[in-house]
């Protein structure tokens, strides 16, 4: 497995260069920027605040809403502004990836809104978005069971490959984004496109989990740096 060369020279279990910045949107209650290689997501958290639209208010907990959006200039082919079926699905799974981590019942009747803008896209936008959102929630002071870290893994030739880049996404036999709460050892996002045996699928998931554990440390480090400053 040692001799397999990835296009950008990474090892099979190596993440792309990761940048995490906390507090990048002054107006927001919490915010973060996460870059993984050439993919960059910015997340802003507004809330807990009075729920909008009102009829979605819930009496015994906060409602978490997530909005995933790609900037028109983030990809080679310009993205038409406005929600697509893809972005609506990602908004949903992103929300479900974050919900297990947030103590929603501490803020009854309120809304917590998480906005995720992808300003550069080169594979792994949903996982970059979840990483940014998780840090932004913490930055907003929302009580959480754990941070959520996320990354995709795949299988190229016979290798289990972590954090697929743009070109790797085209050749992988599968693309499995995973979001994970490392302290709880719980998976909060799991999707897959591909064609793989159950055993191999498990290996890919494990590869992704290892990546999540590394990202988790970087998330904590970034938060610590902001708090200490």
């Amino acid at each position, binding site marked *: 497995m040692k001799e397999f060369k990835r296009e950008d020279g990474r090892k099979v279990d190596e993440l792309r260069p990761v940048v995490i910045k906390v507090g990048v949107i002054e107006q927001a209650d919490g915010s973060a920027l996460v870059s993984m290689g050439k993919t960059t997501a910015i997340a802003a958290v507004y809330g807990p605040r009075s729920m909008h639209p009102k009829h979605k208010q819930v009496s015994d907990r906060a409602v978490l809403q997530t909005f995933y959006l790609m900037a028109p200039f983030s990809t080679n082919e310009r993205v038409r502004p406005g929600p697509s*079926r893809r972005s*609506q699905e990602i908004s*949903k799974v992103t929300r479900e990836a974050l919900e297990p981590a947030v103590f929603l019942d501490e803020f009854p009747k309120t809304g917590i809104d998480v906005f995720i803008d992808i300003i550069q896209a080169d594979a792994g936008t949903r996982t970059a978005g979840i990483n940014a959102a998780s840090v932004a929630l913490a930055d907003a002071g929302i009580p959480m069971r754990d941070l959520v870290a996320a990354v995709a893994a795949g299988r190229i030739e016979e290798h289990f490959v972590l954090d697929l880049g743009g070109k790797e996404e085209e050749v992988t036999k599968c693309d499995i984004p995973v979001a994970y709460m490392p302290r*709880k050892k719980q998976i*909060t996002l*799991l999707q897959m*496109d591909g*064609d793989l045996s*159950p055993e191999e699928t498990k290996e890919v998931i494990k590869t992704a989990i290892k990546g999540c554990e590394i990202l988790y440390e970087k998330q904590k480090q970034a938060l610590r740096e902001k708090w200490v400053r």
Partner: protein
Amino acid sequence: MIIQKQFISGLASRKMRIDKRGQDEFRDITIETGVIAKAEGSARVKIGKTEVIAGVKMGVGTPFPDRPDEGVLMIGAEFSPIASPDFEKGPPAEDAIELARVVDRGIRESGAIDMKKLCIKEKEKTWMVFVDIHILNHAGNLIDAAGLASIAALLTAKMPEYDEEAGTVSYEKKHKKLPMKFKPVPITVFKMSDSLFLDPNLEEEDVTSVSLTVTTKDDGNIVALQKGGSQSLSLEEIEKAFELSLKKGAEIRKLLEKHI
């Protein structure tokens, strides 16, 4: 409602269900194909009281620039307000979109359709295959029903004829089957009170906060995964879900084979 929820949860903690089914037991499944005269292919699937129709329509269009020699597949779902009192306030777009996309990925990623055989003229003309999923009665486990109806409709579809001279499609003559290679089947595993179950009815779905849809194909490979719901899963639960889905997927695939 709260009392019923607690009752169902209580049973689940003892691995029991209100309708006495086993953990991995489906409600009765019926598959009927060829139910819509004007559709190229169609199937009505009932799982218990849940009822779904999938219809396949075909037309001729332009291939996508990045796949100039392939057919085009479009899978959509409408949650008709006919199907549930909850659909009153407009269809739940998010759930319908997710359902269609999960079914789509299972069919697309498995290579169920030999897309290259659908191209008529590279870069210019190709068959477009539309699968539309219509929910008639929502009584739980919609993804499994929709996925099964969709593949059944595709497997029994007959292609219309394309008159290249006139540039028109004749829906009167339909002979050839679609070039199908695999039969992907999605099985959704859901968790109640720390145990895993299959095929929730509506009441069970109400107390479920996490599920995993595993789509497997004929050779036992997994072709799509989708975790749903606001809770989390452990790796062990995921492995267990793979086993359950694989086993039940194979069973349902056999059922499906009787109809093609």
